């Protein structure tokens, strides 16, 4: 059969599916907000992620019913190998859309040793062994958590900033103000937030993402080939996948397929065979082959071991490294004394948080005040990018229980609004040296006004202050009723003092016997 068959249509179909999936994921993330789409719909993304589900199940020793959705991904992989990576993964699609390297037919595959492919397996082993010891820190390298985190913390706030500045500029042009006003009313709060979103180190999250894209300069889909731990897991499953790429005897070795393969797994010196654990089923090789010698056929056999598959020694080394790492995390001083400002979302138990949280950032995205932020050092390196409330940036709204609803793994318990309102997440303390009433001896009362409790936890006392000229002024000074305060942090958020607030929320609780 010498007639060349075209697979353009298949490739077009793949591209359409890729873009559609990317748009769906973005739509789900946009609608991950209070008043958006139902929490069980928007968090489906993470429940489809086999790496997050597996690691979380190992780490928390429990399997959540909602996570059965992951079987869809597993089934897909058992049939069609890493089709997830080539057809669905939003990060993979972004990497395809921004190739950075011109791919021409004369282009040689990059000069990266094949052995680098084992990095992803190393990362995978680290994640799974650490999970065995109740640690999930390295799930920060899961591609879906990377995508969601980047979108939430860097991409969307930045988009909002750009749109806002354009809108604000155009609104001030007289004849444009009405149309802009209508556009704005349509855009917010449905799609863009009505208040600007601020995240600590937003640039860092953006930079990591740009870094991952920039690796495309070295090789197309560098991330997917060498680093992605989810790709590693799906690769392992793919070794027994049903659909296999076969090259017939009619192949004359023109090497075209090796140049178009985005993962560079087709090797001339192996008779143009490929590793199913690396192939993303993109079908580019099918289309480019001038003699149509390539087919994908159902086969029931394990693919051969590759040189870059981890050896037993490498496996044990990675496992030992994981155990050592977890042990060092546990020896960190934060385990003895929590950070002052480790304010967790309502209902969270610290240890349960660490062995359940998959770092997906859905809670951060859903927090309407954007007070919920990825922790940097409050919970030590082990708690990197777990959610923590930064009251100065946003408070825990008395009318909201979103974070627990949207959490796909119940690291934040799902509470009714009534229950959530009774959760003590911190305690407010007044810094009398900086408070406008106490130190400047002027009326302010903002903290008392803002306190959302039916019986306010901030109460006021009329107090006389002697002035430098011996006269006295009477000022209403605030106090916090420690028994009532739930630590929602609206007082800290709204405190008019510049810099750190004069009323701050600290981690709750006292040592035993106090």
């Amino acid at each position, binding site marked *: 059969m010498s007639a060349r068959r075209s697979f353009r249509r298949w490739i077009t179909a793949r591209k359409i599916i890729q873009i559609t999936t990317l748009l769906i994921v973005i739509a789900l993330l946009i609608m991950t907000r209070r008043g958006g789409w139902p929490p069980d719909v928007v968090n489906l993304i993470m429940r489809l992620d086999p790496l997050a589900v597996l690691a979380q199940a190992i780490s928390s020793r429990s399997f959540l019913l909602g996570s059965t959705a992951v079987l869809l991904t597993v089934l897909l992989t058992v049939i069609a190998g890493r089709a997830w990576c080539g057809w669905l993964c939003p990060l993979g699609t972004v990497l395809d859309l921004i190739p950075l390297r011109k791919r021409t037919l004369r282009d040689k595959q990059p000069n990266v040793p094949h052995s680098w492919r084992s990095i992803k397996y190393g990362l995978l082993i680290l994640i799974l062994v650490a999970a065995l010891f109740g640690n999930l820190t390295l799930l920060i390298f899961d591609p879906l958590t990377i995508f969601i985190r980047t979108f939430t913390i860097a991409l969307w706030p930045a988009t909002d900033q750009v749109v806002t500045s354009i809108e604000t500029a155009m609104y001030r042009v007289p004849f444009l103000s009405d149309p802009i006003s209508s556009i704005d009313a349509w855009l917010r709060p449905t799609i863009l937030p009505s208040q600007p979103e601020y995240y600590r180190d937003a640039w860092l999250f953006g930079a990591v993402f740009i870094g991952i894209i920039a690796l495309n300069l070295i090789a197309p889909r560098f991330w997917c080939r060498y680093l992605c731990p989810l790709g590693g897991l799906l690769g392992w499953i793919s070794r027994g996948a049903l659909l296999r790429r076969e090259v017939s005897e009619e192949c004359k070795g023109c090497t075209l397929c090796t140049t178009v393969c985005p993962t560079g797994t087709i090797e001339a010196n192996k008779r143009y065979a490929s590793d199913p654990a690396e192939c993303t089923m993109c079908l580019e090789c099918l289309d480019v082959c001038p003699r149509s010698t390539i087919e994908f056929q159902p086969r029931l056999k394990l693919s051969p071991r590759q040189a870059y598959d981890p050896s037993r020694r490498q496996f044990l080394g990675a496992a030992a490294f994981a155990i050592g790492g977890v042990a060092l995390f546990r020896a960190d001083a934060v385990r003895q004394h929590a950070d002052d400002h480790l304010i967790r979302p309502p209902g969270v138990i610290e240890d349960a948080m660490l062995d359940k949280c998959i770092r997906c950032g859905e809670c951060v995205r859903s927090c309407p005040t954007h007070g919920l932020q990825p922790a940097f050092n409050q919970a030590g390196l082990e708690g990197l990018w777990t959610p923590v409330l930064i009251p100065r940036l946003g408070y825990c709204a008395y009318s909201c229980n979103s974070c627990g609803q949207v959490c796909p793994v119940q690291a934040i318990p799902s509470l009714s609004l009534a229950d959530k309102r009774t959760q003590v997440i911190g305690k407010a303390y007044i810094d009398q040296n900086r408070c406008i009433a106490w130190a400047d001896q002027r009326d302010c009362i903002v903290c008392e006004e803002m306190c959302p409790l039916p019986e*306010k936890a901030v109460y006021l006392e009329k107090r006389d202050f002697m002035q430098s000229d011996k006269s006295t002024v009477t000022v209403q000074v605030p106090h916090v009723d420690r028994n009532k305060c739930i630590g929602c942090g609206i007082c800290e958020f709204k405190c008019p003092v510049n810099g750190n607030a004069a009323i701050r929320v600290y981690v709750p609780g006292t040592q035993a016997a106090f």
Partner: protein
Amino acid sequence: MTTPIDRRRFLRGAAAGLGAVTLNQFLTACSASETRTPPPTSAVQPAQPTSIPVTASQPAAPLATQVPSPVQPTATPATSPDLVVARSGEPEAMVRRAIAALGGMERFVPRDANVIVKPNICVAYHTYEYAATTNPWVVGALVKLCLEAGARSVRVMDNPFGGSAEEAYEVSGIAEQVKAAGGEMVVMSRMKFMPTDIPHAVMLTQAAIYDDILKADVVIDVPIAKDHSLARLTLGMKNLMGVVREREVIHNRMGQNLADLAGYIRPKLTVIDAVRMLMANGPTGGDLNDVKEMNTIVASPDIVAADSYAATLFGRQPEDLTYITAGVAAGLGRSDLNNLRIEEINVGA
């Protein structure tokens, strides 16, 4: 194969981006340097001799030559009362009777007017029963009356400080009643807070005020009467704080700031919802034991008079509230309740 992006396209994109940023900077600079010409047209009304307050009768004061005569926003026809109090009826019935007694909504809302009704929807925490937010039926009745008077559009908005606006609109029940009445609930947009010079202000000489409020033909102020630890009571003048962006700054010398703001915005009508009053733990509320059922509506074109009367519902004197004394001093209205023509209506009877 085509290259995904060539140099020319890159440069074009970059130029467009830089252009947008520059344009923004330029326009921001322009808008900062130009002072808005005050006051909004809706606020200026020809002075009526009957309603000139005390301060305006002193022509020697240098201010008086510059100030557009500090009159009541809408001049009182000789036959109408200065203030109406409606009692013991359904909220909508009380509003309707009160406005009718003032001479009907047509007196305040011209045909085809663009009206903004400003209730108090301060938080998204509780339903209206807790009296932290204005009674939904009171707001709904005002929307209906405006539309019946021939208003072109009636928009309802506030800028809550606890929870999101959309949620506060829903939880308060106001969104439902406003939509049913044919009005429009609008979430305030942050691009529309315009840095505005307030002429003749004593304290608040500059504030970022919501553009739609400034452009509206008619602003109707419909606060709920409730407790507040600094203002003592949140009433009509305090309710206007919601149209300013950095409202925390108003807390310092609140009385004068509120008078300056009210003098600039000048709502044509103030309707105070005292159907359910929040007596303590305001402005947020949350405890039904703090709520007192008063079943009263106070309506007046004079915001100071309305606030003064509402203060008495809490057993306070108008002079107890710093913003009322500042408002009287600024010539915004009257607090001498004994000299006002007050019509009391018992709707239930």
